[in-house]
């Protein structure tokens, strides 16, 4: 046996050596063979309804693709010349992980139901020209992802058909701070669709497993904004949110989602002038239900807007203190916490940012509370006094005028009597 092997080894080797160019030739010739037909730019197939589908395959693009060293039949295993309609290509054969997460995604589930509009591998990655996502020419290169997603998500027909959020909601990304960083400044580090929503495993935000579900938002934003996440986690909002309080705000509640803009943009919900409305929206600090549920003071917005700061801000003096000027932004803590900017011991320093002379004495007295006897007796009493006093005075004036006019008639009669 051993002898036989020694005898045949050179032969096998020689056969293998001879077969190598032939094997390579098979691959090359297979592509060439396909290109005999598919290299023709005019080749097309008629579709029902009179439309036509081009069957041309750009060999150059294929050769430059990540699969370009392969063979047509790797994906189109049922192809032989000539052929009818081929079976759908299964990418999962080679990319099982991607297929698995895709199948669990909202795109994958709809695709499994036979939905032809929903994005499938080729819709994002391309067909014959699939490139690595690190390749700037790739559809899935960071700078190109937005265009790929918006192809469907900025399409009114698709949105109306599947009851997706209004096209403007997602297209607003393009003018957001993230979108501008991408488009205008050409920054790779900015957030693109897939950074927040994921790629293969995209799920709608209302599903707890979704990357964009409320409970995952702080961690998600914190991927790129870790310093802010750290502050937020220590804040009353962060602790509340981690403690499972759904009313506690996450990043997007204040900053928005797709249309996040810079804080100096007047349309931003966290632009100085808009901060009071954002903090004290009907949902949060102006909401009586929230106030009583978490035992926080009521009517934060209206009482602030009655203060000089509120009036000045309303009329465009963005220098005037807004909620965040005193309470902080991401690090907000309740006034009872000694670390809080509005803890009585810190009030002189907080007010002192704008009013350098504010002393410890200044901290005495409530700030933007409802004017009730329990909370602001002094102001309540003075206001009540003036209201009663002015009303009484008006009534007395009117009475006096009436009486005097009555008395004048009497005087006039007496005067006439004297004259006669």
């Amino acid at each position, binding site marked *: 046996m051993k002898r036989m092997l020694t005898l045949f080894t050179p032969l096998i080797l020689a056969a293998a050596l001879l077969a190598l160019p032939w094997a390579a030739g098979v691959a090359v010739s297979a592509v060439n063979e396909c290109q005999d037909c598919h290299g023709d730019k005019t080749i097309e197939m008629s579709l029902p309804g009179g439309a036509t589908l081009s069957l041309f395959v750009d060999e150059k693009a294929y050769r430059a693709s990540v699969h370009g060293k392969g063979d047509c039949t790797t994906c189109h295993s049922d192809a032989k010349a000539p052929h009818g309609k081929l079976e759908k290509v299964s990418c999962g054969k080679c990319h099982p992980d991607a297929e698995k997460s895709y199948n669990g995604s909202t795109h994958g589930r709809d695709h499994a139901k036979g939905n032809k509009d929903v994005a499938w591998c080729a819709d994002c990655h391309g067909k014959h020209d699939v490139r690595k996502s690190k390749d700037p020419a790739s559809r899935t290169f960071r700078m190109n992802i937005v265009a790929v997603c918006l192809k469907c998500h900025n399409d009114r027909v698709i949105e109306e058909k599947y009851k997706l959020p209004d096209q403007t909601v997602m297209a607003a990304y393009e003018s957001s701070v993230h979108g501008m960083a991408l488009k205008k400044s050409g920054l790779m580090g900015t957030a693109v669709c897939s950074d927040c929503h994921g790629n293969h495993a995209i799920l709608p935000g209302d599903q707890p497993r979704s990357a964009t579900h409320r409970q995952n938002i702080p961690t998600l934003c914190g991927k790129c904004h870790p310093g802010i996440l750290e502050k937020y986690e220590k804040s009353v909002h962060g602790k509340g949110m981690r403690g499972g309080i759904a009313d506690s705000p996450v990043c997007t509640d204040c900053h928005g989602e797709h249309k996040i803009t810079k804080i100096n943009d007047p349309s931003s919900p966290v632009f100085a002038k808009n901060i009071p409305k954002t903090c004290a929206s009907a949902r949060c600090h102006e909401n009586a239900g929230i106030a009583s549920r978490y035992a926080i003071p009521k009517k934060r917005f209206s009482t602030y807007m009655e203060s*000089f700061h509120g009036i000045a801000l309303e009329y465009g003096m963005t220098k005037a203190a807004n909620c965040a000027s005193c309470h902080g932004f991401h690090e907000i803590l309740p006034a009872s916490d000694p670390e809080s900017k509005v803890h009585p011991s810190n009030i002189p320093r907080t007010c002192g940012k704008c009013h350098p002379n504010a002393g410890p004495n200044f901290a*005495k007295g409530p700030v933007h509370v409802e004017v009730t006897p329990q909370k602001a007796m002094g102001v309540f009493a*003075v206001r009540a006094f003036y209201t009663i006093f002015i009303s009484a*005075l008006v009534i007395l004036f009117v009475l006096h005028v009436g009486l005097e006019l009555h008395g004048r008639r009497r*005087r006039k009669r007496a005067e006439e009597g004297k004259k006669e």
Partner: protein
Amino acid sequence: MSGNPTGTVYVERMSLMYRIQHILLMVTLVVLALTGFALMYHDNWFGRALIVWEGGVLFRGFIHRAAAIFLLAQMVYHAYYMLFSAEGKRELNEVWLRRQDLDDFLQAIRYNIGTANEYPRFGKYGYKEKFQYWGATGGIFLISISGICLWAETFSMRFLPKLFLDLCLIVHGYQGLLAFVILLFWHIYNEHLHPSVFPMNNSWLTGKVEAEWIRQEHPLEYEKLKQEGVL
């Protein structure tokens, strides 16, 4: 004493000095009221329109404080004039509050409701004029103090609790409203709508009133003028 072709006799009631002071005060108070109420009623259409008209909330403040300085200057000058000039001393004596004023007021009420037979006889200034003068003086004093505390907020904050400034704000606003109400109801009634002067007591422009009006409305002053030989 002066006459005219129709034979009506006029006497001076407001000297040029007082007419100037009165007009300046009037203009200043109107400016202060317009800029002040703009802030007080910022949350309705009236305040919003005023703020826009006054060039925004910042400029509104500038106008309000400029007018306030002018008002304070007028107050200081007026106090000086009333205390140290010959005419001022005379007028201060006339307008000084006396027990008689309360009696006059009560007697006027009694006469008007029919329980007294004599209407009180007033001097140059009756209780209505004195109420106006001292009401305005007291009001401006209070409004000035609270206004200065609010304006000098960096100074106030060093010594005063925020509660005090909250009170200042309430006092300042409501005192302004009070002054406005007095002007609207009391002064407009007395000087414009009162049957004896309707449509207007011209003395704030001409300085003069009819001697007959003095005789009817301020008989003691009339007698005094007669005694002095002015009439």
